[in-house]
């Protein structure tokens, strides 16, 4: 079993798997790294060996310890045990600034710009040269960035890009990208992959963390797999390697992903749950009309900034629409606060889990939060009843509750599950899911897909925005494509493959025969073109 191999992964990778000589120079070589938070062991015995010029994937299920390892390597936290060799020399990395001097530059899982400083000041703070930064930003697909804008006014996806550009601008020997692409729409993600590839071509190394296998196989040379805080294997990326990685990650074989049973045609006229007409919100969402049926999962597909944020905000009562109507079960509704939407049975799960969670509170309190919201529930809580309801939701989502005392100690994926569990427990009739699988491992993703289908099976309706186009066919009944603030197409799941969705997302007319190719192939063509 690979678990045994974890003790000497370097040996294994050096001798057995690719036959390269042991003496080959490694730019980064970490071994025996361990880190515990109280009773929770985030890392037990992790190792990672990176060669110059390679793109090295760091894989693992949610909570496996990837982010923890990145933080240790870059001095953001300190390991309890372990050796870190940089260019063959032992080095005690004391802070991110220290790591930078050693040539290790990270982009963490969450944005690291100072919210109250403008971009220029952020650059000056980190002594980042402005010129290369600006070039990288352009390169990464953000053409008209105003450098005097405050970081807090910038949307998350762009912030991630800026984080990356800032890292690139100092020309790091090792770039560590922790779920860099998770919050990005496909067009921006593509650019990132492109840039990473060019880094490796220039002889620099990249440590790349992602839960998207397409990206891993298209980009990486090797992958180190973590499970429960241990390195359980190092895999060369060759055809079929995905299977092996998944196997190592989960410790058992899992069946191949496939579409889930969709709504029967006979249920098609189950009645309209939500009907949105001529909705216009702010400047981004111009005119959107669609219907959401009972028992339906409708996917929303859009490039970055096409108004999807505003759509979800308006439907959840966070933003007031300027014109248009929303009807729930045929009754016109007006929301001036999320409480109104919730009363109408509409729950919103934001993509950014830090917006949804009480980080210092327990899993239980997080899940039970909506119960207490209404004034009439401010009184005593039925603890027994709560325990059962919450327990059921935890079980249904298989939340890892080892660190349930404080949600912040859960891994990203488990945190995401808590945000969903809340509304399962609250039994919301309609769920607005904004990119719920952002930064979630395959196993968990599949659970979430199943869950959404299950909800639909119970007659509930789900509006599902995703930045991963393949998910549409895995989960949705229909795809609603938004472009320039308007619905440009509605595709039934059968024909909503990535090619069709991509075309639609760019506002191109539907063309059944056009072969756009799968996403993973695109960068290659791109690279050839430029």
């Amino acid at each position, binding site marked *: 079993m690979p678990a045994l191999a974890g003790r000497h992964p370097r040996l294994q990778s050096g001798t057995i798997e690719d036959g390269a000589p042991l003496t080959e120079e490694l730019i980064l070589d970490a071994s025996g790294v361990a880190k515990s938070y109280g009773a929770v062991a985030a890392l037990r015995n992790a190792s990672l060996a990176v060669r110059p010029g390679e793109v090295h994937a760091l894989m693992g299920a949610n909570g496996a310890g990837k982010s923890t390892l990145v933080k240790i390597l870059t001095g*953001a936290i300190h390991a309890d045990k372990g050796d870190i060799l940089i260019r063959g020399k032992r080095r005690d990395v004391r*802070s*991110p*600034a220290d790591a*930078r001097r050693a040539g290790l530059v*990270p982009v*963490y899982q969450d*944005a*690291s*710009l*100072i*919210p*109250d*400083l403008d971009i220029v*000041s*952020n650059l*000056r*703070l*980190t*002594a980042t040269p402005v010129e290369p930064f600006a070039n990288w930003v352009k390169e990464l697909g953000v053409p008209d960035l105003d450098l*005097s804008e405050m970081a807090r006014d910038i949307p998350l996806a762009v912030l991630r890009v800026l984080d990356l550009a800032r890292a690139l601008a100092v020309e790091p020997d090792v770039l560590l990208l922790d779920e860099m692409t998770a919050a990005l729409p496909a067009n921006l993600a593509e650019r990132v992959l492109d840039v990473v590839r060019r880094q490796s071509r220039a002889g620099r190394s990249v440590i790349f963390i992602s839960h998207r296998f397409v990206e891993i196989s298209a980009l990486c040379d090797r992958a180190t797999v973590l499970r429960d805080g241990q390195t359980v294997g190092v895999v060369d990326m060759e055809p079929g390697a995905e299977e092996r990685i998944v196997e190592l990650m989960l410790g058992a074989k899992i069946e191949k992903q496939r579409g889930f049973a969709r709504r029967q045609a006979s249920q098609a006229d189950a009645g309209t749950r939500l009907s949105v007409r001529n909705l216009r*919100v*702010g400047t981004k969402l111009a005119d959107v009309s669609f219907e959401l049926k009972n028992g339906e999962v409708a996917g929303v597909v859009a490039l970055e900034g096409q108004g999807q944020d505003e759509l979800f905000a308006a439907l959840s009562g966070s*933003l*007031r629409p*300027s014109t248009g109507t929303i009807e729930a079960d045929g009754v016109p509704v007006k929301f001036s606060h999320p409480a109104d939407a919730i009363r109408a049975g509409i729950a919103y799960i934001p993509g950014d889990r830090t917006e949804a969670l009480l980080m210092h509170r327990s899993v239980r309190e997080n899940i039970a939060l909506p119960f207490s919201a209404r004034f009439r529930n401010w009184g005593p809580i039925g603890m027994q009843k709560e325990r059962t309801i919450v327990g059921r939701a935890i079980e249904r989502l298989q939340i890892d509750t080892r660190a349930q005392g404080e949600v912040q100690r859960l891994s990203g994926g488990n945190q995401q599950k808590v945000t969903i569990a809340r509304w399962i427990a609250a039994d919301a009739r309609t769920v607005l899911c904004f990119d719920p699988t952002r930064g979630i491992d395959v196993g968990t993703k599949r659970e979430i897909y199943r869950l959404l289908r299950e909800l639909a099976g119970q007659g509930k309706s789900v509006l599902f925005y995703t930045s991963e186009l393949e998910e549409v066919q895995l989960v949705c009944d229909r795809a609603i494509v938004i472009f320039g603030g308007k619905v440009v197409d509605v595709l039934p799941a059968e024909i909503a493959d990535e090619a069709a969705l991509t075309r639609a997302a760019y506002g191109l007319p539907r063309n059944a025969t056009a072969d756009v190719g799968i996403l993973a192939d695109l960068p290659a063509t791109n690279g050839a073109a430029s």
Partner: protein
Amino acid sequence: MSRLLRRNGWVAGLLALFAVLLVLTKIIQPGYGAGDFGSLARAGLPFAFAVAAQAVVVIAGGIDLSVASMMALTSVTAASMMNGASEEYALFVVPFVLAMGFVLGAVNGILIVVTRVPDIVVTLAMLFVLQGAALLVLDAPGGAAAEWLKASITGTLPFPFLPDAVTAWLPNALVLLVVCLCVVWIPLKRSRLGLSLYAIGSSELAAFRSGVPVARTRIIAYGLAGLFGAMGGLSLTMSTGIGAPIPGPYLMASVAAVVLGGVVLGGGRGGLLGPIIAVFVLRLVRTDLTLMAIDPNVTSIIEGAIMVAVVMFGAFIAIRGRPA
């Protein structure tokens, strides 16, 4: 341009408010002139330094409850050192006291960093410690101040190129304040250290990840607060000619003016100018209330109401200004 106004709108508004109040004062008391304005500047001096001290710390994401005690301690130290000493000796006393303020302030910061006790508790403890120290230096008001020090905040200096009518409105106290603050703040704000102050106030984690030496920056922030506090203490000694070991009402006033001045409690936003103008607005309000001979008991209602109303108004614009 519009961004400039948006970012500095609060300060501009305060400045306008100050101008309106000045006009109002002139209407209430037609005799109000440059000399009275000089009194205003002198009255504002200790408050302005207290507020500057508080502002630096608040921008860096903290709070300093020991400002007033720091002023009391530095004031009695200066007054007792100068007691019976020669005029020249004060030349040594001033830098000594300033350095003492910086060091004691830095102690605040070091304690926060080392003990990891929340800033509000550390500075609360230091409030008692510094106050106790002040009582050990002088157990009753006393001491003395060098004549040249006392003179340096009275009257006006003739400025070259400026007509007397203008210099009359530039009292020495005001000039001293501006010089002291600018000497420290302007180079600071332009430096990486200045950015770091804002950074740790805005997001400590992000600052740390951006390579800001968080602990050191925090210590320096408190050190600067101590330095400004010492300036405040000296200004007390300069205006009263003595040192008093019981802290004056500078703590609450500094917090109030910092917020009125547009510095966000919690850190990362605001500057020094706003709070300083806020100090003078509050002083002028008091002058007006005195000039109008308002019932003394009503004045504290009015002061409280103004504080609440202005901040509520600010909040109201902020809510209205939010998109959609």
